[in-house]
């Protein structure tokens, strides 16, 4: 089955007989194609005792197949100038690369072999374990990572799929062997949970035919969905510090459980987040904490509306002497948004920004591929880019104010501070 829409991006979308979804979009900017191959195999799939399994699998899946040892894969990628990246978020593991158009068929064939027939050789697993352990140790020396991961653990619980460390710990990674990686692949990397997006200077139907050739013979029922409870919204204010006295600057992660992506209030939250902590270098937060008080090089807010209510987070990096002032200023800006809502001018400017920045967001192959993959994951439709302006235009000031009242309560904020700071 193939569908396409006219106007906007108008990608061509096909569902292969094995359930895999393939989306292709022609873009003639460069003689190259970006490939974004995603699976429903993110870190929420990790068993608690094997936290970090999805991440570990993403770093080993391309280290050898039944017919290609790791060095052959390396050579096939490198001689085409292709850098294959793997990305793992809570729900998705993705393989992402860009190749010249003349290499598309060969690269698709190589990717198909990698995801269909990985062997996870013991020696490669041992080497990659060392890399993962080093990454975990680096995270543990990074106040920004420690504050953010600490916030997620406090918001959702350390055993929840959103609260666990995505890379796991030295202990859990040490317990993951090749057998566990093979089981993870067998259970989670399947055509029924696959979405392939291709964007570049290639005929979309031709690209879909090439994908069918590469992946069409793969069989496997969709994976069982992962059960995830919603986080329990905090009823009191919680503050935790992670002392890292060898550092020069403290990182603040301040947040709440937010909303689902499917929540009707999503577009009001999107605007609220832009006004609060993004527009013109950090929105209201940036204006207060960076521009007027000179306390931080960066301060911003981020909304991750997801399959369950994801976090709405404020982040800032400040001198340890300014931590208390910065937290008080975040409180003040949230209170102000909660009390008065946005101004009409803020509504107009942020709405215009979000709508009129779309041509820029969708200029590059990488940008288009990421957008289409997100639209596919949340079931937003192939015409989503065309509908966004109307969805944002329909949001009222009262709806944004209601979103602020619903979530931005400093009295129920969860705050984690990592760095050379101890609470007095």
């Amino acid at each position, binding site marked *: 089955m193939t569908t396409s829409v006219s106007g906007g991006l108008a990608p061509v979308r096909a569902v292969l007989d094995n359930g895999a979804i393939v989306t292709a979009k022609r873009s003639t900017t460069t003689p190259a194609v970006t490939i974004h191959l995603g699976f429903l195999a993110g870190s929420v799939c990790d068993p608690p005792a094997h936290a970090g399994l999805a991440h570990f699998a993403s770093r080993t899946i391309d280290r050898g197949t039944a017919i290609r040892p790791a060095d052959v894969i390396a050579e096939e990628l490198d001689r085409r100038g292709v*850098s294959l990246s793997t990305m793992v978020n809570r729900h998705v593991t993705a393989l992402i690369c860009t190749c010249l158009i003349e290499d598309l068929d060969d690269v698709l064939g190589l990717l198909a072999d990698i995801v269909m027939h990985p062997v996870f050789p013991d020696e490669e697993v*041992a080497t990659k374990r060392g890399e993962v352990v080093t990454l975990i140790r680096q995270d543990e020396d990074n106040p920004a990572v420690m504050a953010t991961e600490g916030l997620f653990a406090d918001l959702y619980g350390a055993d929840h799929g959103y609260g666990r460390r995505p890379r796991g710990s030295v202990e859990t990674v040490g317990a993951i062997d090749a057998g566990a990686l093979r089981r993870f692949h067998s259970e989670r990397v399947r055509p029924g949970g696959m979405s392939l997006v291709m964007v570049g200077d290639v005929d979309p139907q031709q690209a879909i035919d090439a994908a069918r050739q590469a992946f069409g013979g793969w069989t496997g029922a969709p994976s069982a969905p992962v059960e995830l409870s919603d986080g329990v919204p905090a009823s009191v204010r919680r503050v935790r510090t992670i002392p890292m006295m060898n550092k020069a600057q403290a990182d603040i992660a301040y947040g709440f459980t937010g909303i689902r992506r499917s929540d009707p209030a999503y577009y009001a939250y999107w605007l609220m987040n832009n006004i609060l902590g993004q527009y013109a270098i950090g929105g209201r937060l940036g204006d207060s904490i960076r521009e007027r008080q*000179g306390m931080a090089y960066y301060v911003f807010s981020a909304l991750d509306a997801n399959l369950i209510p994801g976090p709405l987070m404020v982040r800032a990096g400040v*001198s340890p002497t300014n931590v208390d002032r910065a937290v008080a200023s975040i409180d003040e800006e949230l209170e102000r948004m909660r009390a008065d809502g946005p101004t009409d001018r803020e509504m*107009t400017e942020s709405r215009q920004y979000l709508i009129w920045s779309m041509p820029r967001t969708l200029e590059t192959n990488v940008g288009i591929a990421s957008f289409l993959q997100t639209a596919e994951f949340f079931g937003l439709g192939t015409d989503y880019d065309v509908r966004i302006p109307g969805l944002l235009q329909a949001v009222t000031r009262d709806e944004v104010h209601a979103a602020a009242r619903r979530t931005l309560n400093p009295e129920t904020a969860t705050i984690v501070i990592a760095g050379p700071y101890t609470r007095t």
Partner: protein
Amino acid sequence: MVEEVFLDNGLRVLVQELHTAPLASVWCWYRVGSRDETTGLTGVSHWVEHMNFKGTTNIPRDKVKGIIEQFGGYWNGYTWIDQTTYTETATSDALDRMLFIEAERMASCLYDPADCESERTVIISELQGGENDPETMLDQELTAVAFTAHPYRHPTIGWLSDLQTMTRDDLYGYYRRHYVPNNATLVVAGDVETREAIAAVERHFGAITPGDVTKRPLTPEPEQAGERRIVLSRGGTTAYLKLGYHAPAVTDAEFFPMLVLDAVLTGAKGVNLWASFRMPPPQRSARLYRALVDTGLASAIGGGIVPTADPFLYTVSLTAASGTPLARLEEAALGAIDEVRTHGITDAELKKAVHQLRARLVFENDSITNIAHQLGYFDTIDSWRTVASLESRIAGVTVEQVARVAAKRLNATNRTVGWFEPQ
């Protein structure tokens, strides 16, 4: 095709029509960077860049950052060793507004004393954020040791003591000296009509007065006489090794063979400071990856030679895998480097490196922002015309040239070794 014109005040204007998207990108480049700083004023170029987002005669301070975003646009700026630049990309009907912003920035920034003070702590916060990262610290310290005379030794963000003592008059004086049209190149690329774009540039910039842009002479870096070493011992969890070799400037015939040599050692990165380094290099079959990562000694490697006006550094950066002593990692890294220094590269390696670099040139030109960046960037270090010759100059590199540059550059007397040892 790129159209070049000069206004009467000396402003060089480059316009390239690209009708792939309904967008226009403007970059305004100044030939001033941390190379132009004297002791006591290190970091002034970067701080001036920050101040130039703080309001002008005709753009109130609180409107500066939203003036382009309210039309969906992107804006930014950066300062490095040879240049400072400002950019906006937005729908092409906002071109006039983008040019207005840049003309205001060139001639009419305010430097309110209170804003200067407020920005002092923002920049110190930026510096401290960098100090949180051991690799940033190691890079800064290694560069300061590798150069003894040339101002490339200063970190672009400056030394803390200078940031604490610099005055508003220091900043404003520096701004007025360097932000003049005859020290700038304005690039416009995208969905524009060349004649109309040039007329708009003339309208906005034509009345700005030129200045005296006589540059003070720089002390060339003397030839290094022996290996230099530094060891940073700080709290941390991970050990890092960095090697720095004095490298050719972009105008040196050895630059492109060195670029190929880096591709063979650590994978091709391309030459777009703005775009290429956001995409990891194809490096799984690179020599140092195989020798150090595949063997489990390092968890990550990187290498880089960046086009610069004067000779800068070729660096190799290594993250020691947990449990690997730095001495063992260094021995293995230097062993692999000595191999290429002694025996050069093979024809197959040359072919692969050239193909990788060609692909990177394609990938890094995926947006009008990136295309416009390259014209301006190269104009601050050499000539914008170099951009069109990149592919042929890379394709013209021979195994003999790479062997010569490896033998000449990758020896111990040209090397600085940096360790970060976690305590």
